[in-house]
């Protein structure tokens, strides 16, 4: 049992480190290396411009989308090399956030279902960051139950005509392309009438409207489709087989193993080490110590759980299901930590002014943002279902709408 690289891994790590040392945008180092409580803000340069510049440089030298085949803009690396790259890239990976959905979810879906010509056209610029992709799945009435979506696609000649609305689309406002799941047959049960496409976000009839979130920020969008026309050649998978296609996308979301675990614990420990209450240093307070210890073991548990998965990759094996606990644990932790940090500050805990609030209001920002961590990418409840069903082998939920034609599924909750 050790944390050491194999000789080949060590060679790869050295190569990656040398390249990063020589090429990373050092002018951003000071800003990027600061703890950002889950949010990246840059002064003096737009994050997308900075991200694209770094991604382009990486791609030119063969360090983009490492695990993709070379002909599609990748490096043909093994999963463990990808993890080592992430470890070495360190805080510069904050410049990869805008590409995450496209490269992590849309790319693999294109890889599996697009034509060879399409792959050669679309994957390299997706890898190099020249083109950004988004994922158009959720709808106002189809969140956790995404198969309940209602955006229609109707065939007219060689084209499909799209009408409907998507929501929670991260990055739609700066994306060039998107993968889109639609309903093509409402007369069959809901999972059986879906079809997947990809389209240009510049297509006539696509309208992106930002959503103002509960924390005042705007990171998500609503996307409206009015008579948007998509060539049949941009269909991914068979007609009415979109559910299976979407599983490829979603499985990739859950397969990604982060090189770093972020829970807010380290920042909280530092805060409690520095903060002095009316009774003395916060770190001497029994109640504070008990909570910190609880978070410390959760943080450590996540870190070493990911090390176990990385070890499996290093042996060339598929990681076990243990990594499925990550977001479930960290989501709640972030919220609890933020609430406790505000609580420690007493009445001043209400302040968000960076000049007055402790640690520049980072915990207050985290407090307002944290509800979304327990919802986006699978709610806590859906994640528990997944663990119960896929890991523990418990029966699936009894679904009353599973065999009903979609157009007969009840749509209203409250009776009367």
């Amino acid at each position, binding site marked *: *049992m050790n944390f050491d690289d194999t000789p080949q891994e060590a060679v790869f790590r050295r190569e990656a480190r040398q390249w990063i040392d020589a090429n990373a945008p050092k002018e951003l180092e000071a800003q990027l290396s600061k703890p950002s409580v889950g949010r990246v803000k840059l002064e003096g340069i737009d994050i997308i411009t900075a991200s694209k510049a770094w991604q382009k440089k990486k791609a030119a030298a063969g360090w983009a989308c490492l695990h993709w085949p070379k002909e599609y803009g990748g490096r043909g690396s093994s999963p463990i090399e990808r993890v080592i790259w992430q470890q070495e890239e360190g805080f510069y990976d904050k410049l990869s956030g805008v590409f995450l959905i496209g490269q992590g979810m849309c790319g693999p879906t294109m890889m599996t279902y697009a034509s060879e010509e399409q792959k050669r056209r679309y994957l390299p610029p997706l890898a190099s960051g020249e083109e950004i992709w988004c994922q158009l799945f959720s709808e106002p009435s189809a969140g956790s139950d995404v198969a309940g979506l209602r955006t229609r696609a109707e065939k007219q000649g060689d084209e499909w005509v799209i009408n409907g609305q998507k929501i929670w689309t991260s990055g739609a406002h700066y994306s060039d392309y998107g993968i889109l799941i639609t309903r093509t047959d409402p007369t069959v049960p809901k999972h059986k009438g879906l079809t997947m496409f990809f389209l240009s976000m510049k297509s006539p009839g696509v309208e992106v409207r930002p959503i103002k979130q509960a924390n005042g920020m705007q990171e998500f969008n609503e996307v409206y489709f009015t008579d948007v026309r998509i060539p049949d050649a941009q269909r991914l998978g068979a007609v009415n087989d979109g559910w299976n296609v979407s599983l490829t996308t979603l499985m990739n979301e859950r397969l990604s193993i982060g090189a770093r675990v972020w829970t807010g614990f380290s920042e909280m420990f530092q805060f409690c080490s520095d903060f002095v209450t009316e009774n003395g240093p916060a770190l001497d307070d029994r109640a504070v*110590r008990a909570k910190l*210890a609880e978070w410390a*073991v959760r943080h450590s548990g996540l870190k070493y*759980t990911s090390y176990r998965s990385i070890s499996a990759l290093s042996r060339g094996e598929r990681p076990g299901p243990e990594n499925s*606990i990550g977001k479930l644990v960290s989501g709640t932790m972030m919220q609890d930590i933020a609430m406790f940090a505000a609580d420690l500050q007493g009445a001043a805990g209400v302040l968000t002014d960076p000049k007055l609030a402790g640690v520049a209001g980072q915990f207050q920002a985290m407090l307002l943002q944290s509800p979304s961590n327990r919802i986006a990418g699978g709610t806590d409840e859906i994640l*528990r279902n997944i663990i*119960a069903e896929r890991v523990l082998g418990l029966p699936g939920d009894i679904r009353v709408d599973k065999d009903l034609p979609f157009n007969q599924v009840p749509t209203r909750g409250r009776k009367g």
Partner: protein
Amino acid sequence: MNFDFSDQQKQLRDEARRYLTEHSSPKAVRAVLDGGAPFDQALWKGLAGMGFLGVAVPEEFGGAGAGHLELCVIAEEMGRALAPVPFSSSIYLATEAIMLAGSDEQKRRLLPGLASGQSIGTLALFERPGNPSPQAIAASVAGGALSGTKVPVPDGAIADIAIIAARTASSGRETDISLFVVDLHDKGVTRKALTSLDPTRNQAEIVFQNCPAEPLGAAGEGWSILSRVLDRAAVLMAFEQVGGADRALEMGRDYALDRIAFGRPIGSFQAVKHMLADMYVSATLARSNAYYGAWALSTDAAELPEAAATARISATQAFQHCAKNNIQVHGGMGFTWEFDCHLYYRRANALAVALGSLSYWEDLLIDRLRSRNAA
């Protein structure tokens, strides 16, 4: 990175599981529970025969000379099977203390007996309710003779030798404490078996009246040795707890699949599924933290103190969480003597306080993280 046990170590785990499934069955555990004997002597001899007791003891002292990672995988299986034997007292505490602080002569004299199971050891630390602390030790050694009372002493009713923490000075500093080895068959020893939460592991009160006490380690270094012994035991016991937590989770899962209510398996209700998913989360965190402890223990890493506290807290929480919710999943049947759920519940709660309570280890962890951060 290879943050996992080797194939050989995994084979050893499988071997231990097979052996314990057969020889530490619920029936065997219940024989001790029902008061037939203070421990399962046949199982103890069998474990010795398998070489499990001395797995981490060097060959020159009568052991198998494997290592602590091998001991960790065996510990996990001991916990899983609720083995009703003095494994933790004799191996994690007494054997570790002697390996850590004993002279060459002491190792040569004491370890072969412990490794072969012919001699059972324990650590007699506690004297009253509360956590480990030099101030809580009143037993004292003067002129080579020990007097005082230790309670509770785990496996104290059956042990042959005890490592004793006793006072050798009264300056109020931790250097007042020294460690000793004491023969529990001495005529000055009076033992009384005590009833406890977990009758599958015995507890005793031991009164010492002028018993010959042989120093272990240098005078005045008892507390620092002890805290290192407790760290090592915390990692090993964490594996027992992880084994127990996993088994309790499996029992709950299996019952949720079998039991039908309202016309469907109860495991199809989200209230039950989510409870089991949360148990899986606890057990997974605890396992990963225990691995961290195992790495630190086996490499004698500088992080051992914080890794041990982390492993200990996480494993205590996981075993308690899984054992109590296993009963909950079983409903009324889980609260019967007949079902095995209470065996895990008893063991989980006994181990939770065995080396000092959760809050004690939480305090240690914060102190240790603080000094690492300051360094």
